[in-house]
């Protein structure tokens, strides 16, 4: 989606605010927001791509106003209601509906180390690559209303495949629970001048990791 989250190349966002000796969490609630998201993910009612899309679907003014873990909290509320784990009434009331059954937590403290082992997004399935290292490619001029990981600033631009990373889950379909559609992901090098014109340094480049479906031969 052409959302405000797709920020590459935007102006006017101000100076970078650097905090020296920044703590991992600035307050207990930030750690709690992080942990609630991780713990609720274990119910497997959504996936990583759907959860990223959840943040992208926050109203743009809210997205820009909210701090990082406020966004995580709002996204979790959205996914909880959409998945049916919590009803909108329960969220508004802050308590379970009378008589609703009580679950057993999907994640216990003993299972936290196992959760930390991660979940590869690569897939060991035979899918032929459409492109190869050294090949000239163009990122499609596409504007899907749903989730995509092809940033606007690269659409329609020509680059060169630097390397093939192998086969990965395709976020555009996976985020909407339409299947994993595994396909190759490539590191594609774009000259900075191709992306930004003559103002960029002729030596510089931007590398993006792009799925097969985002590319065409050029």
């Amino acid at each position, binding site marked *: 989606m052409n959302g405000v989250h797709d920020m590459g190349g935007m102006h006017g966002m101000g100076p970078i605010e650097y905090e020296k000796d920044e703590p991992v969490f600035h307050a207990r609630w930030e750690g709690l927001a992080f*942990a609630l998201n991780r713990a609720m993910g274990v119910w497997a009612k959504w996936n990583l791509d759907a959860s990223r899309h959840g943040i992208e679907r926050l109203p743009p003014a809210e997205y820009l106003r909210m701090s990082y873990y406020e966004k995580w909290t709002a996204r979790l509320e959205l996914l909880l209601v959409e998945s049916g784990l919590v009803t909108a009434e329960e969220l508004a009331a802050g308590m379970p509906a009378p008589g609703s059954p009580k679950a057993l937590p999907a994640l216990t403290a003993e299972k936290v180390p196992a959760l930390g082992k991660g979940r590869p997004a690569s897939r060991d399935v035979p899918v032929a690559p459409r492109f190869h290292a050294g090949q000239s490619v163009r990122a499609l001029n596409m504007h899907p209303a749903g989730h995509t990981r092809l*940033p606007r600033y690269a659409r329609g631009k020509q680059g060169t495949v630097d390397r093939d990373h192998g086969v990965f889950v395709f976020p555009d379909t996976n985020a909407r629970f339409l299947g994993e559609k595994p396909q190759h992901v490539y590191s594609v090098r774009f000259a900075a001048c191709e992306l930004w014109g003559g103002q960029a340094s002729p*030596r510089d480049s931007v590398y993006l990791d792009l799925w097969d479906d985002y590319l065409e031969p050029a």
Partner: protein
Amino acid sequence: MDARAAREHEHDHAHQAVPSDPALRVKALESLLVEKGLVDRAALDALIDTYQHKIGPRNGARVVARAWVDPAYKRRLLANATAAIAEFGYGGSQGEHMVVVENGPQVHNVVVCTLCSCYPWSVLGLPPVWYKSAPYRSRAVIDPRGVLREFGLDLPEEVEVRVWDSTAELRYLVLPERPPGTESLSEDELAALVTRDSMVGVAKVSA
């Protein structure tokens, strides 16, 4: 309340944009999820403790220091970063697919995620606020040299800048240049010099 009124009531809630105190909002959500049996408080504490105390940029610093002193390790790291990093026991969430890019006199690499906040948790921990913020995400790709100057790093024009936008599930760690005058330092002493910022590519390591 009839069904239609209830739907409209729900609609109002879904679209209300009244900022509430985030601490209260999260606490309320935690209570609700605990009450429903969906989360376990001990698991939440264990998650917070893991990312606050066990995973952080000291992991990445050890990888970098090893690469500086052990050429065979450095080759393995650049060829298959995920496997080489796993030699230290580091891996897992947001480190499942690692790539290491090497800085040198002619090339400077810097990492960003323009679309969200992708970051190599397994070696750097959770990202700092500036990395997740609009100013860095918007400008790192269009004006990397200006961004680096803001961090106090003024690169000569003849140095090539490579920006890595983490658009997929690959996570990038920058292998910074070993600073001159550190020939006599041990691996542990070298690791102590390596900063988080140098492994994102917004700083150099100084002795």
